[in-house]
């Protein structure tokens, strides 16, 4: 049984123009992506802004429409379902959004924010509902007494934990975390990341962890996929990606991260320069005539690279 499989997913946006505003071209936000998620693992999806990583996440949860391809969850293709049928599966896949300042409704109290998924999927009496919300608040490390407060009364890290509590209410199996900590300070970041690891163990959650920060992805993920221009360029375990990167784009991305050891500064700069030169010199080796990325090919059990 496949747990979650994204198969040849394509998300194209039409570009209109000319006579009668016909469709003249497409923006290929996601262009033929295939990935498999195993239960209980964290899959890190990395790439620069505009590479299609967020679109992939949003399409899995149903916020964007797939142009082609399948999203198979427990052997059912979610892209073929009607709206009402899809409702059943919404509960199993939840999302943590990037910006805790704009993803919580400022006019709602915390209890209403967290209880909203419960109200959609379960019928609970107000008393039960309140108890459940308070339990969740405690779980995410917030005082159960503060359920009648409004989002603005909380700090950034606390808000992000409210967002996590909301995602947890209906016992999801998969959580799509779209840059969950990039709006937060380092120490608050640490708190949220630790907490995400804790609840993963507790609920046996599967994460699709979308981020541009390779340091954080390395810390969180079991497997990593590197995206560039709407396609995957390399996929493998954390060790595969960080110790034996094969694609030039992966190497370039890794070389761009500043090294936290000031003594290796010059060495690192030299390495970065070499990788950048190689990127320009061997461009044809890694990209086809139209500048498109090749299809992924397996080079070991866990490691795939987009090479001709």
């Amino acid at each position: 049984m496949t747990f979650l499989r994204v198969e040849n997913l394509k998300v194209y946006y039409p570009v209109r123009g000319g006579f009668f505003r016909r469709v003249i071209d497409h923006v290929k936000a996601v262009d033929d992506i295939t990935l498999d998620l195993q239960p209980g693992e964290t899959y890190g999806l990395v790439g620069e802004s505009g590479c299609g990583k967020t679109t992939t996440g949003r399409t899995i949860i149903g916020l964007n429409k797939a142009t082609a391809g399948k999203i198979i969850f427990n052997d059912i293709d979610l892209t073929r379902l009607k709206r009402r049928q899809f409702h059943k599966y919404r509960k199993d896949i939840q999302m943590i959004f990037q910006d805790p300042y704009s993803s919580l409704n400022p006019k709602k109290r915390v209890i209403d924010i967290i209880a909203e998924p419960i109200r959609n999927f379960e019928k609970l009496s107000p008393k039960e509902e309140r108890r459940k919300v308070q339990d969740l608040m405690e779980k995410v490390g917030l005082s159960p007494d503060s359920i009648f407060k409004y989002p603005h009364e909380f700090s950034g890290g606390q808000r992000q934990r409210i967002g996590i509590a909301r995602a947890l209410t209906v016992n999801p199996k998969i959580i799509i975390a779209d840059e969950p900590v990039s709006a937060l300070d380092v120490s608050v970041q640490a708190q949220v990341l630790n907490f995400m690891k804790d609840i993963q163990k507790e609920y046996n959650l599967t994460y699709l962890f979308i981020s541009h920060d390779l340091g954080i992805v390395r810390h969180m993920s079991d497997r990593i996929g590197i995206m560039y221009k709407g396609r995957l360029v390399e996929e493998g375990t954390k060790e595969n990606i960080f110790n034996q990167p094969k694609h030039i784009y992966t190497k370039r991305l890794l070389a761009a991260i500043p090294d936290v050891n000031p003594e290796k500064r010059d060495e690192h700069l030299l390495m970065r320069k070499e990788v950048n030169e190689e990127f320009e010199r061997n461009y044809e080796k890694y990209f086809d005539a139209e500048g498109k990325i090749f299809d992924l090919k397996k080079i070991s059990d866990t490691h795939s690279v987009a090479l001709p």
Partner: protein
Amino acid sequence: MGKPLLQINNLKTSFRIGDEFYAAVDDVSLTVNENEVVAIVGESGCGKSALALSIMGLHHELNTKLEGEILFQNKNLLSLSTNELNNIRGKDMGMIFQDPLTALNPLMRIGDQIEETMKNHYNLSKEEMKKRTLELLNKVGIPNPERTYMQYPHELSGGMRQRVVIAIAIACEPKLLIADEPTTALDVTIQAQILDLMRELQNQMKTGIILITHDLGVVAEMADRVAVMYAGEIVEIADVFTLFNNPLHPYTRSLFNSVPSAADGDRLHVIQGIVPSLKKLPRTGCRFSERIPWIKKEAHEENPKLREVEKNHWVRCTCYQHFDFPKDAEDLHYDIS
């Protein structure tokens, strides 16, 4: 190391909230030498941007109170009139802002924006200015200066915009450059290019740079000296190698341990509690004491001052001697008052 370029002595920047003034930058003393990169590190709200804006004199006059001294080329910036300050700002001191989209005027062509600073400080003819502007655009690595000269900011990508912002900052060849989170809004590969560019320009022009950032990786790559700020105060200053090898102050150590790429082990360290707001900031004693409650009161000084613990390594408060991380870190607390 060159001679001192900027000397800040006991700077205190206070903002008005209601009828009271609250200090966001408190007792900060810092020297920047020629051809030196000084990094200021800290979390949001620690006063690092407030410090930068104080040096540039960009705070609102009525709502801010500045005390102390900011000596730049032996002139105290705080005692100058706006006119005198305008002769220095943009010419001898340049600033790179964090967000390149909001720092540029969306209605002005790139060329005009760069020439604006030159117009204020130099007496150049139109042709000369254009020539210089094109040179500048070339210098910051913009591929087609002639075209970019006529473009508007929205036509450029984030990295290109930040290059334009840098071009404006260095248009008059400043001696001091203040970069406030210059790469935070950018992707890593673009960040690497911008940092390379800043390093190159520094080598060419021997500028002193104040680099404000929260990214320890950027600090490790760029800085000569590092000042760590917490709650408006500098808690530790040292050269970059000393600070990364032997961080002493509890805040510095906590910061290092909470960054995934620098921390060792599976769990990240979480600093307890939250940064106190300006109004609630304790004005006496060690400001970090509240966030390391397992350290005894006696370990802190009553009135902590920066002290030189080894050569050129300054640390505030004595609590660092007694500090250690708790064994079984319980990192979720009820942190709502």
